[in-house]
């Protein structure tokens, strides 16, 4: 530790929220990731969220070119990246302007004063310099000539161009923050050594600037305190930090290995789902096949082809892409093949808010197809459990021979958190309905008596040649049938098949209270915010508020109604206009539900939730 001798005077905190902001080129994502990784290895619980502009290279210094990375670390359970910021590191005026509203009054802002030039102030639409005009009087502002000090630190290292020197100033900021929160720079130095292998002068430069920032903070009297955040109590085991999209990709890798099938992904680039493609394409060594297709439709239809030929087939997309895939999902449902569709939800409708989060594709997932075409719909709720639900989506599709839509969202897909690593050996078995050889009296639409899953005869198997297609099928042979009674029978059996999935999924649970005055209901990526709001209230003495978070949307868990009926009031909280609420009303039409909705492309804030829940139990 760089400042061990100061530890005795350190102020002990449970949790802290830090936001690093700057220009797109300032390296804020890297700075934030280094701080969160270091903290996780120290033993803190963490949650992070990046916030970067939709523009790839927005003009320097502009308000819409600000890139940010927020880290929430704690010695207690951390379930969200946090709402209000304890420490803001602003590398330029635009970053300060766009993020100041999030900083708690009285808390600290570190700025690079070198970036507060007339030109940059104009670009950020500041009429006067906020460092001089008194507008920051409610905050503790730490002014540092970061660019100058970085240059000074590097003046003796040869072979560095001007651009490289300026680019390392983010490490100066990181060094300061490491000192403030009593963190060792070792992990980051090891990272430099790996990342810049073969460029010793770059390793030296980054290490030097990082340490210079750390020593500078130590000697600077402007920084009031050193804070101490002890390791959190977490289940013992081996951990790593994962992003939701990576965890999703890995869940499918695990499912492919467990099921003994090869994984096929057909996909088309779309934000924010593309990272799943980027991750899976790296793993050809596991036999993963990926096709970057010509469009969203080819993404899913190639996956349907792969499923027909016996692969564990997957397609990944976001909102508008799901709309384009609708007809093909109907085909997969009709021919009863296994197929997982991952929809990383973003703000809609139309192109909407591609880099922002929302939960507004729920009804599209449920009903966005022609005819009566039910599919299984499940939702992950945290960056880490994207792994479990991806695995579960694969298991359900293979065991029930029907498409599964897995919903995640931009918030959990891009967010990261500690994941207690699951070995494939600990994961549940995955069965399938493949028929290995010709059988007497076999029919393509023979079904499993319990699950109603049809059997899976794969090209290359002699004697099982058969045809499937989008026309209505005869209930047994799968041949085309226009018989009226058969159509009704088949429509009903396809619905019943989905309903029976209830017998194979876990029952719905509640947290904090299983009966009482108010049940908070959520689904998908809002788990972190809802859970921490109800937890805070519980700690404040509101023992009459329970919390039910749904991961299984279609079908709902069997005991859903009885869980809901244990409470006097129910509030369904969603980042949309009330879609899950509609689903519940459709199932239980006499239930009295109230709603709490937010449609701003942003997650719920802790205080708005607590206020709402308090009001409801008044």
């Amino acid at each position, binding site marked *: 530790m760089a400042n061990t001798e100061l530890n005795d005077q350190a102020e002990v905190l449970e949790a802290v929220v830090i936001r690093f902001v700057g220009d797109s080129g300032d390296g804020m994502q890297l700075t934030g990731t280094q701080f969160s*990784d270091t903290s996780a*290895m120290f*033993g803190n619980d963490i949650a992070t969220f990046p916030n970067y502009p939709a523009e790839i290279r927005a003009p320097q210094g502009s308000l819409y070119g600000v890139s940010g990375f927020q880290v929430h670390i704690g010695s207690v359970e951390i379930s969200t990246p946090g709402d209000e910021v304890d420490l803001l590191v602003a590398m330029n005026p635009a970053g300060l302007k766009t993020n100041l509203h999030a900083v708690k009054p009285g808390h600290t802002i570190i700025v690079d004063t070198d970036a507060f030039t007339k030109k940059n102030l104009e670009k950020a639409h500041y009429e006067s310099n906020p460092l001089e005009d008194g507008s920051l009087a409610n905050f503790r502002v730490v002014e540092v000539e970061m660019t100058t000090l970085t240059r000074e630190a590097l003046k003796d290292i040869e072979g560095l161009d001007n651009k490289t020197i300026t680019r390392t100033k983010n490490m100066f900021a990181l060094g300061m923050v490491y000192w403030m929160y009593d963190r060792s720079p070792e992990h980051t130095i090891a990272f430099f050594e790996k990342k810049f292998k073969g460029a010793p002068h770059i390793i030296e430069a980054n290490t030097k600037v990082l340490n210079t920032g750390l020593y500078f903070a130590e000697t600077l009297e402007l920084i009031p305190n050193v804070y101490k955040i002890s*390791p959190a109590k977490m*289940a*013992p*085991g*081996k*951990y*790593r930090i994962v992003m939701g999209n990576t965890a999703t990709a*890995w869940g499918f*890798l*695990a499912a492919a*290995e467990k099921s003994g099938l090869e994984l*096929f992904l057909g996909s088309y680039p779309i934000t924010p789902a593309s990272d799943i493609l980027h991750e899976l394409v790296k*793993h*050809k*060594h*596991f*036999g993963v*096949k990926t*096709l970057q*297709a*010509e*469009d969203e*439709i*080819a993404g899913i*239809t*190639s*996956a*349907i*082809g*792969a*499923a*027909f*030929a*016996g*692969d564990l*087939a997957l397609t990944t997309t976001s909102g508008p892409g799901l709309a384009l895939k609708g007809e*093909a999902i*109907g*085909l997969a449902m009709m021919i009863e093949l296994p197929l997982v569709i991952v929809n990383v939800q973003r703000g809609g409708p139309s192109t909407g808010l591609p880099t922002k989060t929302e939960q507004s594709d729920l009804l599209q997932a449920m009903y966005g197809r022609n005819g009566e075409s039910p599919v299984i719909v499940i939702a992950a709720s945290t960056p880490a459990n994207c792994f479990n639900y991806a695995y579960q989506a694969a298991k359900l599709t293979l065991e029930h021979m029907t498409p599964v839509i897995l919903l995640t969202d931009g918030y959990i897909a891009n967010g990261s958190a500690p994941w*207690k*690593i699951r*070995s*494939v*050996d600990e994961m549940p078995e995955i069965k399938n309905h493949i028929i290995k050889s010709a059988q007497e009296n076999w029919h393509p639409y023979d079904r499993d008596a319990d699950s109603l899953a049809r059997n899976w005869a794969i*090209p*290359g*198997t*002699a*004697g099982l*040649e*058969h*045809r*499937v*297609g*989008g*026309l209505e099928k005869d209930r047994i042979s799968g*041949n085309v049938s226009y018989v009226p009674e058969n159509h009704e029978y088949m429509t009903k059996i396809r619905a019943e098949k989905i309903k029976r999935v209830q017998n194979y999924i876990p029952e719905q649970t509640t947290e904090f209270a299983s009966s009482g005055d108010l049940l908070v209901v959520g689904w998908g990526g809002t788990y972190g915010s809802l859970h921490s709001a109800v937890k805070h209230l519980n700690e404040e003495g509101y023992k009459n508020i329970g919390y039910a978070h749904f991961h299984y949307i279609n079908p709902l868990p069997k005991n859903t109604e009885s869980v809901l009926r244990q409470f006097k009031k129910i509030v369904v909280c969603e980042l949309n206009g009330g879609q899950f609420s509609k689903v519940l009303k459709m199932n239980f039409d006499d239930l009295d539900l109230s709603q709490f909705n937010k449609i701003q492309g942003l997650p719920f804030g802790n205080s708005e939730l607590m206020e709402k829940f308090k009001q409801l139990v008044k």
Partner: protein
Amino acid sequence: METTAEKKYTYKDFESNQEVRWCPGCDDYVILRSMQKALPEMGVDKKDVVFISGIGCSSRFPYYMDTYGMHSIHGRAPAIATGVKLANNDLSVWVITGDGDSMAIGGNHFIHVLRRNIDLNIILFNNEIYGLTKGQFSPTSLVGQKTKSSPFGNTQPPFLPGELAIGAQARFFARIGGNTPKEMTQIFIDAEKFKGTSLVEVLQNCPIFNDGAYAEFTDKLVREDKQVYVEHGKPMIFGKSRDKGLMLKGLKLEVVTIGENGISEADILVHDANDADPTLHQMLVRLKYPLVTGIIRSVHDKTFDEREIEMMNKVKASAVFHKTDDLFFSGDTYEVH
């Protein structure tokens, strides 16, 4: 692969138990039977044959073949077939499509499957009309053609499938009349043997909505005078008395008569289907008189599936991770006690 192919199938082995429901007199019957006769000659195992179709009259085809098959959704068969082939490279995968299915709603998949050159065979039933929806003009209908949706005449200029295909880098393109089963059967066999995406355009007469669309070229009485059936390495000669031929004059193809103006058979242009340069192939595709049938282009190139398999084997050979646990427990992990 097992060698059950040696048991010598007959066309009957490929007939399904489904009643064929095309209109009487439709060329689709000819195509179906030609395919059933071609398959036993290909040396493929029945269990490995997959037909994928889109939507339209032609796309009912898989139901009539006793192989694996999928009657899918409109225009998407090339993408589905791509998935099938990538999932299992041992399969013989066929796409059955029509001019509406492949040139209109499925145009994007059509050009991209050709660009990639995955080892599939595509049979395009071109009847220059929408049949199943009862008679609207299609992307290959002629300007001025009167149809249900163009009562005063079609105002949309047509695609020539071969021109579009070669423009999209098709390595194998053949065209054949719908009433010449013998040649058609042979072309299907050649299409299967060709490694890469093989496109066969069948000039298919629709007796109900566009009867006689090709009669001026394909009618038995005029066929030999109006068509040149090209074969690689042979001079492009046609005519009932085999006295007409093609010569290249400047940048144009010209019809000449052997024995006139001192022209002998040796002067006739010899067909080179293997020429990578598509210029002459495009000229043959566009030629109106005589209409060119046969294998116009057959250029060997590495296939997409080969490239994918090679890359996967290369990555596997230098793999650090063999099981997912190796990946999950690699890199920056940490222990919580």
